[in-house]
């Protein structure tokens, strides 16, 4: 009896599959349960945002950016309005800059909470999922009371904010920050510290540093591969150069480090929030901008550190009230390319875990 060859099985996972984070689809070829080939397919949520932008005015496109990475809408708002402001040369009032940092870091915490929740859920850790969503709710409440919406926040305008946050925002933010360490302890206890989780994530899905750089990976996935690179430090936008925070980095390159790095980032965001809360001055929140926004002809590429990766906006203006071209460089769309390379040779369960640690949001992947 010679070596028997088993027949390969190609399985279509998604767009309707319990762990595909929306409508991602991949055609996976298995040998037994071992993956031999992955073909990612995206585009089921493609709405043509870049084309839509060309027929909207600069202000009218802001609500659409909410729909990019819908788990951290303020970041998308911020990236977009900062690009337009750079194009026009607008100087923001101090309070608006601080508020932007507060919104962005709150959104980062909220997004990472969803990440922990969904990673736990992809490994059937149901209860950890509900705990993270319970705490994320408090951030969404903060967004709701100040901007009027929970998910598609639409908080920022070109030239600042449309209105100041209400006075009850500050005590709520403070109590959230006070509870944050306790919450993180709970997540650690129920998810990170669990031996099953460690066994499933440690040294699974290794993304070496060189490969990560070659694949243009950004964000926490890159930092978990041992590259200490964060746009907030490397090329500070807004007033991020005023804050004292660390850029967490881990050298394990595996799924567990990618997961743990998010917890580190929540801690650092808490630090930034405390400083911003302490330093925020009184004053107006809107700069003087004309009602009809008409940037001069030119082009600007601006990027921010989104919780999922770097979010870049490349806006070309021809001097008319509508942009000639808006290019969105979304982090996870590029990060997702690592999946067919990294997950080869692992099993289905590892594939699910590796995909979860990528933290893909299909709104951003499909634009």
């Amino acid at each position, binding site marked *: 009896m010679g070596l028997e060859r088993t027949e390969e*099985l190609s*399985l279509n996972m998604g767009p309707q*599959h*319990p*762990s595909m984070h929306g409508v991602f689809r991949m055609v996976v070829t298995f040998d037994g*349960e071992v993956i031999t080939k992955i073909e990612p397919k995206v585009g089921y949520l493609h709405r043509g945002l870049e084309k839509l932008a060309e027929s909207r005015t600069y202000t009218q496109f802001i609500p659409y950016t909410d729909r990019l990475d819908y788990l951290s809408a303020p970041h998308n708002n911020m990236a977009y309005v900062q690009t337009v402001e750079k194009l026009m040369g607008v100087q923001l009032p101090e309070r608006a800059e601080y508020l932007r940092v507060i919104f962005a870091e709150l959104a980062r915490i909220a997004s990472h909470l969803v990440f922990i929740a969904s990673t*736990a*859920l*992809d*490994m*059937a*850790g*149901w*209860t*950890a999922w*509900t*705990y993270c969503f*319970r705490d994320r709710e408090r951030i969404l409440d903060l967004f709701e009371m100040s901007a009027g919406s929970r998910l598609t926040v639409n908080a920022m305008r070109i030239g600042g904010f449309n209105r100041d946050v209400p006075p009850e925002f500050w005590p709520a933010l403070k109590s959230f920050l006070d509870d944050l360490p306790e919450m993180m302890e709970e997540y650690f206890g*129920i*998810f990170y510290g*669990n031996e*099953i*989780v460690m*066994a*499933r994530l440690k040294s699974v899905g290794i993304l070496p540093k060189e490969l990560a750089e070659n694949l243009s990976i950004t964000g926490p996935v890159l930092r978990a591969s041992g590259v200490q690179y964060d746009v907030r430090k490397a090329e500070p936008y807004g007033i991020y150069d005023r804050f004292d925070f660390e850029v967490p980095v881990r050298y394990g390159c595996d799924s567990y480090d990618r997961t743990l790095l998010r917890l580190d980032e929540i801690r650092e965001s808490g630090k930034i929030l405390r400083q911003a809360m302490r330093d925020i001055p009184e004053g107006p929140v809107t700069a003087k901008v004309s009602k009809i926004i008409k940037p001069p002809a030119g082009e600007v590429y601006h990027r921010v550190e989104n919780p999922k990766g770097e979010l870049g906006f490349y806006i070309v203006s021809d001097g008319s009230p509508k942009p000639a071209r808006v290019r969105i460089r979304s982090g996870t769309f590029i990060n997702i390319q690592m999946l067919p390379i990294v997950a080869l040779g692992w*099993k*289905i*369960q*590892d594939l*699910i875990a590796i995909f979860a640690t990528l933290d893909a949001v299909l709104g951003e992947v499909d634009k």
Partner: protein
Amino acid sequence: MNALNQLPLNIAAAIRSLFGDPHSIWADLTMDIISIILVIVLIVLAALILILLERKVAGWTSQRPGPNRLGPHGWFQTIADALKLMGKEDVTPAGADRLMFKIAPMIMFALPMMTLAVIPYGHGMAPIRLNLGIVYYLAISAVSTLALLMAGWSSNNKYSLLGGMRAVAQMISYEIPLVFSLLGVVMITQTFNLSQIVADQHTIPFIVLQPLAFVVYLIAGVAEVNRAPFDLVEADQEVVAGPFTEYTGLRWGLFFLGEYGNMTAVAALTTTMFLGGWQGPAILPGYVWFFLKVGIIIFFQMWVRWTFPRIRIDHLMGLAWKVLLPLSILNIFLTGVGIYIYQLIVPRIGG
């Protein structure tokens, strides 16, 4: 209290006395039919209560009240769900192996019926008294894997097939430590008869003498009923619902009933083997003690399910082969040494 304790036996005697000869073939047949009906009622009742309890526990762990719409605190929720399942269309996928597809849920439902029939629920209250009770139980409970494989294979669905194959791989690894962990008890009692084992625990439950075997059996038992963290067969994040993916309506409901029945059966056997079965302080009737202990084991299983994430399949096999199996063999060895010392010393000191 004694009257309450003996109530089921007295009822049985009363029914028998309706016949001219209490031990005629007709009397025996009637009693057996009544016992079978009682076991079926037990499974259905257990499933109705356990499904709700599961959802309540899931709710409580995540700070929710659980189902709370239908009836007081949502206690009628499962009945509504069962009615809904009955109203659903019965779909057989194209290209399915029809016969196997239809038989699989029935097998799954029949198994807990057969296993629960040999459990002693009280003093003299085993529906069927078998001298080889444990062997019978183990043989029958292993068949559930066959039902899962049949369902997975016949559904003509790749996810189902993967789930079915996982069931087989999982069974091979946990079944051996499961059997070995029960051997210690058998060595002490020198019998396979479950009623006799319970009677032998009159002074001390075997969990005290066999703590290692108890832990091994508890872990392997969770694996046997395919519950989290060992629910690889129906891991919905990976293989959608495993073998159950293509099932609808009442057939799916039968799988569900069978699953909860199996869970009850494993808990019942744990109670019988390690927790002293129906033995307990006389403040409550024996059968109440029995179900209380079963309830505690089941609650523990639920608590574990809603806390832990799912283990990876190769880790499960590693755990079963490299940890549980050596532990259960060690347990057999220790039990043997213990019995030897006991036999060596006790007669000399005149015990």
